[in-house]
């Protein structure tokens, strides 16, 4: 970096580039990992376990798409198919989508972004990982013993009175896993309240922190309800306590109310952290402050609050009162407002920005477009009349996959690429990464866009066969299965090059993008205590300078001096690898 030539700056740059002791090599051995209280190591533990469950869920997805390649149920029996889509849903929702970003990127970055040494309760943080693993192991055991066939929603009366599969064991695993969520949320809230560095005021917090704060609120307020609901389900199944069974004086629709009181906000647990990631990426890779910072910050809280008021839109055809349906429909439309605030503000941020085509930004572009499609089709489903037509069809499946995969998973991948240099101290191969992002984008759309058409034509979800007489249906299903294959390959590529880069990747400077966040003002990978000296924040969030200005006057004070390299100058430092 030629703009800073003082000896001190050079020394700092050197230290930033080749840290001697960091959190990865501070201690060795399996015990140092399994008993660690370092939030960064726990983040890595979570990353490994979350990836494992994602792979399991992905394998079931492959089985589903393979079955639907042909109209007749010729690959597996209907009962097996019921188990396969149930396992896919349970693994993906409870053990990948909900924990993925908060427990990996969130664990790693929340303390660093606010200038803290660790989370407020490091032991509880480790405990949450163990709880997650126990819950995951129990549910996984239920799958191995013979599985569950209720769908991930566990609707009564089938799950209580009829299913003879491992409902209780799988439910127990999810029940236990909930505590992991609660502890993570609690940890984040206390950390953000009490451990911000001097000068890090609430409105200087990165939007990643705001979105994680909102997510944590949902985790703490919502998760106990699903825990109790599953407990009641198990009680009714095992001990025939009359909560949901009309014969015992219960009401099956009550289950749906209680289930969706958590599970709809859970959608926001999944996507809010992704939105935080996208805010960071968009600001960094357009070199502009986020347009309307406070609106984006409060829209996270608004989504968290409104998210709790809309669950009834899952019950439009479940004999719920039409008057309640009207209220829920109206509030569901309202949720679109804070979501749109985010999309418009990211777009406005990009306007006249120095747009980059680095991999994280590619994922951000994809997120904004795909989330918009996912969100807009959500409005179709929130409309009382139209929902009758598309309820429980592939339209719904396509809708939530656009939000979950097109939104959350792409944000997770974008965030992984953006902070991979910080987490591992190595750069990922940019060319391969851009290629993989493109493959994933194409594969994703080819998988799920045909499902909108299928659903609108009447293909129900959770069916393993469809009429062979409908020629268009099979064409669309073949497209979807083909797309899923491309998507699967696209997801394998980052898996390979991430592992490759840990050994062979280019050394990452302290601040490769360069970004203004505190996490970039410490070496890559960071030392165990994160910062040698507690940082003092004297600038607003995202005080970026445009590229042209930066080339003349340097990245500027907040643009992290240590080893800062703009993509344009990136070639300069590659020859300095040892």
């Amino acid at each position: 970096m030629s703009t800073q030539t003082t000896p001190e700056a050079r020394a700092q740059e050197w230290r930033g580039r080749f840290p001697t002791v960091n959190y990865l090599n501070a201690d060795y051995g399996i015990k140092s990992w399994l008993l660690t209280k370092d939030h960064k190591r726990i983040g890595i533990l979570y990353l490994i376990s979350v990836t494992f469950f994602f792979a399991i869920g992905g394998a079931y997805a492959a089985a589903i798409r393979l079955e639907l390649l042909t109209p007749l149920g010729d690959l597996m029996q209907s009962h097996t198919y019921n188990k396969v889509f149930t396992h896919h849903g349970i693994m993906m929702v409870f053990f990948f989508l909900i924990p993925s970003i908060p427990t990996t990127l969130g664990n790693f970055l929340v303390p660093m972004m606010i200038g803290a040494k660790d989370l407020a309760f490091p032991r509880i943080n480790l405990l949450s990982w163990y709880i997650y693993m126990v819950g995951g192991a129990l549910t996984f055991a239920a799958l191995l013993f013979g599985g569950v066939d209720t769908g991930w929603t566990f609707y009564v009366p089938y799950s209580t009175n009829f299913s003879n599969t491992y409902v209780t064991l799988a439910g127990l695993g999810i029940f236990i896993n909930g505590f992991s969520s609660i502890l993570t949320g609690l940890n984040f809230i206390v950390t953000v309240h009490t451990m911000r560095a001097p000068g890090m005021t609430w409105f200087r917090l990165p939007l990643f922190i705001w979105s994680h704060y909102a997510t944590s609120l949902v985790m703490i307020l919502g998760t106990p309800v699903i825990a109790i609901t599953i407990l009641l389900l198990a009680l009714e199944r095992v001990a025939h306590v009359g909560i949901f069974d009309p014969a015992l004086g219960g009401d099956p629709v009550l289950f749906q109310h209680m289930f969706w009181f958590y599970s709809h906000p859970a959608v926001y647990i999944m996507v809010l952290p992704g939105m935080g990631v996208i805010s960071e990426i968009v600001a960094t890779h357009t070199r502009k402050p986020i347009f309307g910072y406070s609106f984006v910050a409060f829209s996270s809280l608004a989504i968290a609050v409104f998210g709790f008021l809309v669950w009834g839109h899952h019950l439009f055809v479940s004999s719920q009162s039409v008057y309640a349906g009207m209220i829920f429909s109206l509030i569901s439309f309202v949720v679109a407002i804070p979501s749109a605030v985010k999309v418009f503000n990211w777009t406005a941020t990009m306007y006249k920005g120095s747009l980059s085509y680095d991999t994280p930004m590619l994922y951000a572009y994809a997120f904004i477009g795909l989330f918009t499609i996912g969100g807009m089709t959500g409005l179709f489903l929130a409309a009382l009349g139209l929902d009758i037509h598309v309820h429980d069809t592939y339209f719904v499946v396509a809708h939530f996959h656009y939000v979950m995969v097109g939104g959350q998973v792409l944000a997770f991948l974008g965030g992984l690429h953006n902070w991979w240099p910080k987490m591992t101290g190595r750069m990922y191969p940019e060319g391969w990464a851009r290629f993989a992002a493109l493959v994933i984008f194409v594969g994703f759309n080819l998988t799920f866009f045909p499902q909108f058409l299928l659903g609108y034509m009447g293909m129900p979800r959770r069916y393993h066969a469809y009429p062979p007489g409908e020629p268009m249906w099979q064409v669309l299903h073949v497209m979807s299965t083909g797309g899923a294959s491309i998507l699967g390959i696209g997801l394998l590529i980052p898996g390979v090059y991430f592992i490759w880069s840990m050994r062979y990747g280019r050394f990452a400077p302290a601040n490769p993008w360069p970004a203004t966040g505190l996490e970039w003002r410490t070496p890559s990978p960071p030392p165990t205590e994160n910062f040698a000296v507690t940082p003092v924040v004297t600038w607003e969030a995202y005080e970026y300078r445009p590229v042209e200005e930066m080339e003349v006057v340097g990245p500027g004070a907040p643009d992290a001096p240590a080893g800062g390299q703009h993509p344009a100058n990136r070639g300069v430092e590659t020859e300095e690898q040892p």
Partner: protein
Amino acid sequence: MSEHIVPRSTYYLVFGALIVLTAVTVAAANFDFGPMNDVVAMTIAVTKMMLVLLFFMHVRYSSRLIWVIVASMFFWLIILLLLTLTDYASRDWFGANVGGIMSR
């Protein structure tokens, strides 16, 4: 965290009150209060909950920030109950329970 030292006698008193209220719950189950059944049961339950919250969980001695957080939890509970009741209260407004299987 400022620790408030609560005399042991308070805990014994609260424990005793909880046991008594449990007995009252069981006793009340033997009488039919008609439409007041739910009200009686809920009153006893809420009283017990408040005793646990205020004394065992130390909310009574905690800062106002904690009170705000506890209040927000109640607000959330009210959302759960109120919006669920919009369904149950208005299900029969059409008279014939349109589309519904439940007519309780």
